[in-house]
C-alpha cells in the first residue's frame, strides 16, 4: 500500500481542488482550490528536475 501514498494524496488533492473551486464561491475557496489542483503539477515539475533514487 506504501506505493499508493503519493498517488492517493495527488488524486484527492486534484478532486477536492476542482470541487472546492466550483462550490465555494469566494476568493478563499478559489485560492485554496487552485492550490490543491496545482499540487500534482508542482510534484511533477519537482520530480522531473530531481529524480529520486531508483529503489525504495
Amino acid at each position, binding site marked *: 500500500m506504501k*506505493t*499508493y*501514498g*503519493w*498517488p492517493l494524496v*495527488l*488524486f*484527492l*488533492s*486534484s*478532486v477536492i481542488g*476542482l470541487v472546492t*473551486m*466550483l*462550490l465555494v*464561491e469566494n476568493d478563499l475557496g*478559489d485560492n485554496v*482550490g*487552485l492550490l490543491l*489542483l*496545482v499540487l*500534482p*503539477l508542482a*510534484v*511533477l515539475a*519537482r*520530480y*522531473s528536475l530531481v*529524480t*529520486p*533514487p*531508483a*529503489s*525504495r
Partner: protein
Amino acid sequence: MKPTTTRKLLAWHRWCGLIVSLNVALFAITGVLLIFHEEIDDMLGVLPESSGGDNTTTLAQAIAIAREGTPGSTALWASRDPDKPHLGYVGVAPGGSTLFADSKPVAVDLVEGKRVENLDFDKTFSSIVFQLHAQLLMGPAGALLVGVIGLAFLFSLVSGAILYGPMMVRFSFGLLRRERSLRALVADVHKFVGIATLGWNIVVVLTGILLSIGNMLLQYYAATELQALASRLGTSEVVTDWSNVDRAIEHAEATSQGRELQFVALPGSEYASPSHYAIILHGKSGLDKSMLTLALADARNPDAVQHHDFPLYLQALMLAQPLHFGDYGGYPLKIVWSLFSLLSLLMAVSGAWITLSARKQREQRKRSAIVDEPLPEATP
C-alpha cells in the same frame, strides 16, 4: 494480485489505451482550443462589435427579423448574448420542424434592428473544433461514439492505476530512469504523468461521458416530465403569436430571485408546451450560473408563470459542463486546465509508443530466433 491476473490486465490496458490513444490526443488538443474559445472568437472577430447606443429591438422583433430572412421557416428558440448585449440569437428551422437539432442560430443586432449577415455559426473555427471534440464531426451518433471512447479511456485509467502498484512496488515515486533505454524512460514518464494526473483525468472523463449522452437525457426529459407538465397545463393548440415573449421573460426573471434568461423555447418546439414559453434561467455567478431552472409562461397570459426545478439527472448534466471544460475559475484555472490537457496528451502518446515499440521488439526477437535456429540435418 496474481501474476497471471496482472499480465492479463496489462494486456487489456495496453490494447485499450492503444485503441483510444489517437482520440485522446485529439480530445486533448481540441480541448485546449475550446478552453480559450472566447478569446479565439474575439481574435478572429466572429461576432460584430456594437455600433453604440441602446437596444431598440425586442426579442419578439428579433424573432420576426430572423424569420424574414429565411422564408417558410419557423423559430424554435431565442436568446440574448450575455457578453455582447447588443446581440440576440434566434434558432430558425425549416417549416414544420420542432426539433432543436434542425435549427440554425441566426444573429440579430438588437441596436440596429437587423440580421447579422455572413455569419454561419456552424462554420466558425470554435464551432468546428467543438463538433470535432464532442461529436467527431459525425453528428449525434458521433457523440455516442465519443461516449464509448470515454468508457474505454476510463478503463485504461483505472486499470493503469491498479497496475501502478505491482509495477512500482520496488521503485520510488517519481522515478525517471534517464540512464537506461529510451523505452524505460518513456515508460517511467507514462506511469508518473498518468498517476499524478489521475484525479483530474477521472473527473474530466466521467463528465465527458455524461455530456456525450446529454442530448438523449434532454430528449428523455422532454418526452416524459415536460410532456406531463404540458398535458397538466391543458391545451394542445399551438400558439404562434409570440409578440409577448419579452413580457413573459421579464416576468419570469422578476419572480425568480435574480435569475437571468439563458434561452427561451418557443411554444410548439420540442422543449416547450404547445401554449407555453419554456424560459430557461441561470443564476448570476459561480455554481448557480451553471444550474438552470425552468419557468413555464402562458403564451396567452405571460404574467402566469410557473417555476420548476430540473430533475436530478439533468442537474448532474449541468454540473458536468463546468467540471469538463474548466470555465469557472477565470484565467488561472484555464491555464491549469490546459496544462493537464497537454499532460494527458503526453500520457496517450507515450502509452501508444511503448505498446508499439514493445511489439516491434518482440517481432525482432522472434525473427532473430528463427535466423539463429540451426537447420535440420538432411536424412539419408
